[in-house]
């Protein structure tokens, strides 16, 4: 599906032995990961597994407790590093959109360009319009965020991030706050972005999206990376017990308990993931919501 799957480029982000504690709560317990140029990496895992914290550490919205994060070879935890300059190259999309409510859609997309990149108003507007068109919201540029649906707001948020010409896009559960019927629009924008070769790091619950779009899937649980690999392997034929249990719960939420026979069921079931959508359209709720799009 993804063009970048063929040959991963140079490393854009290199994370080594990353730890993060909130007080006595040890959330990240030694993560190692690399994101290459043009690669789409999806992070899945149960809530509370630390996947959002992991993502937020990469652009230093959370200060790591220890470990190293290199972006384009530069150590972001180094006090000498210009974090604002690094963030300019790294777009971020939030679960709650976080559009600026006092600014119009167009201004949301231009304000950082004019204040940070010192682009002229005209340049910034042209760039913003180009990206708003990309997310299919050209006609909404005069609107204010409160007048838009959640899905539209999230697409504006993507356009806002893209307007900074980032090398890398971070997505923190971009569809988790959306009504199920609005998820598809956002996912199809992300699919298109991936197909254009954007380097993407996506924390998500959308298994169908991860399976179809990701070059690599990371499964996290309890602050560690449990399993990592191509989607067919991690989602299709996971080897770790924790991955199997999680996937079973996600893909068949109505199934009650994970006893011994259930694990066997899970094994059978996740093997069928690729075919699931065609056979039971809709029965898996939002987790298959984006499968038919893009």
């Amino acid at each position, binding site marked *: 599906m993804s063009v970048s799957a063929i040959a991963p480029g140079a490393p854009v982000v290199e994370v080594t032995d990353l730890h993060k504690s909130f007080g006595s709560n040890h959330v990240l317990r030694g993560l190692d990961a690399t994101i290459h140029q043009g690669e789409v990496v999806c992070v899945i895992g149960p809530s509370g597994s630390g996947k959002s914290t992991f993502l937020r550490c990469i*652009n230093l*919205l959370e200060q790591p407790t220890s470990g190293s994060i290199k972006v384009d070879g530069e150590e972001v935890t180094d006090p000498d590093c210009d974090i*604002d*300059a690094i*963030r*300019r190259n*790294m*777009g*971020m999309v*939030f679960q*709650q959109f*976080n*559009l*600026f*409510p*006092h600014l119009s859609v167009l201004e949301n997309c231009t*304000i*950082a360009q004019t*204040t*940070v990149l010192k682009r002229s108003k005209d340049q910034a507007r042209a760039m913003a319009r180009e990206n708003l068109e990309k997310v299919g919201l050209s006609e909404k540029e005069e609107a204010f965020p*409160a007048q838009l649906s959640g899905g539209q707001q999230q697409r504006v*948020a993507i356009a*806002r*991030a893209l307007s*900074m010409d980032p090398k890398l896009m971070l997505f923190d559960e971009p569809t988790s706050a959306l009504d199920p019927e609005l998820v598809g629009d956002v996912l199809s924008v992300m699919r298109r972005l991936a197909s254009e070769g954007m380097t993407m790091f996506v924390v998500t619950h959308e298994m169908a999206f991860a399976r179809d779009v990701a070059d690599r899937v990371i499964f996290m649980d309890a602050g560690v990376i449990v399993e990592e690999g191509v989607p067919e392997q991690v989602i299709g034929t996971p080897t770790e017990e924790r991955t199997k249990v999680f996937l079973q719960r996600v893909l068949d939420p109505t199934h009650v308990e994970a006893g011994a026979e259930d694990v066997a069921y899970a094994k059978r079931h996740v093997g069928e993931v690729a075919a699931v959508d065609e056979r039971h359209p809709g029965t898996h709720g939002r987790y298959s919501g984006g499968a038919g799009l893009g």
Partner: protein
Amino acid sequence: MSTTTEAAPKKKLSPRRRAQRIRWIQYALLVVVAVAIALAADWQQIKEVFFRPDMIKATFTEGLPNAFKNTLVYTAGAFVIGLLLGTVLALMRLSSIGPYRWLSTMWIEFFRGLPAIVVFIAFGLLPLAFEGLVIPYDPYGTVWVALGLVASAYMAETIRAGIQAVPKGQIEAARSLGMPAGAATRKIILPQAFRVVTPPLTNEVILLVKDSSLVYVLGLSASGYELTKYGRDLANSNANLTPLVIAGFCYLAITLPLSILVRRMEARQKKER
């Protein structure tokens, strides 16, 4: 009012009927009281004391416009000083630098804890205590600074609450776009914070209008009189309350529209949310 059943032997009133009857009784009582007061009052005397026609005329011609203007100018200047200083204090209060926080907390607690009139008396004595001290734009400068200091303490707390009401995701979004902390505060946080605090800040203006009546203790010359001092002096020298009543109406002419404005803004914000 209660659910007693003592009226049960008779025809039992439904709760709605009973509430209706109680309402009518209250209306009737109010009418009786109003009529009694109207009959008992000495209208001639009231008119002489509060609304004497020649005093009304004298009040208007002798310097009411100037006093009215002074009240407005004092309030406006103090508001500007209070707003600027209050914003700085609010940002200091939320700063990560400890001494800034302590300083602004001390300032805020000091000026909020003192009666405004004590601050004004102290300001009136400053030129005596520090010989040669001149505050420019006399008398406006002194009034603006004295009133503005008091206002800044109250406004700082209002603005701080407004800043804290802006969701954390806003600063995160701004920073994630590469905006430095200062630019994010100026362009993203403060505009939203001020939108939240416009109604409470307008209420501060109303309080300021009223507090401006205390600045007479600064010892102003006649041309610097505001509404209260002007009305009071005139009332004193004529042993008649009419000038004060007019001064009072002047205050209402300023504060009532502001109150209505605040209510409108609050209603609109509620709708937007």
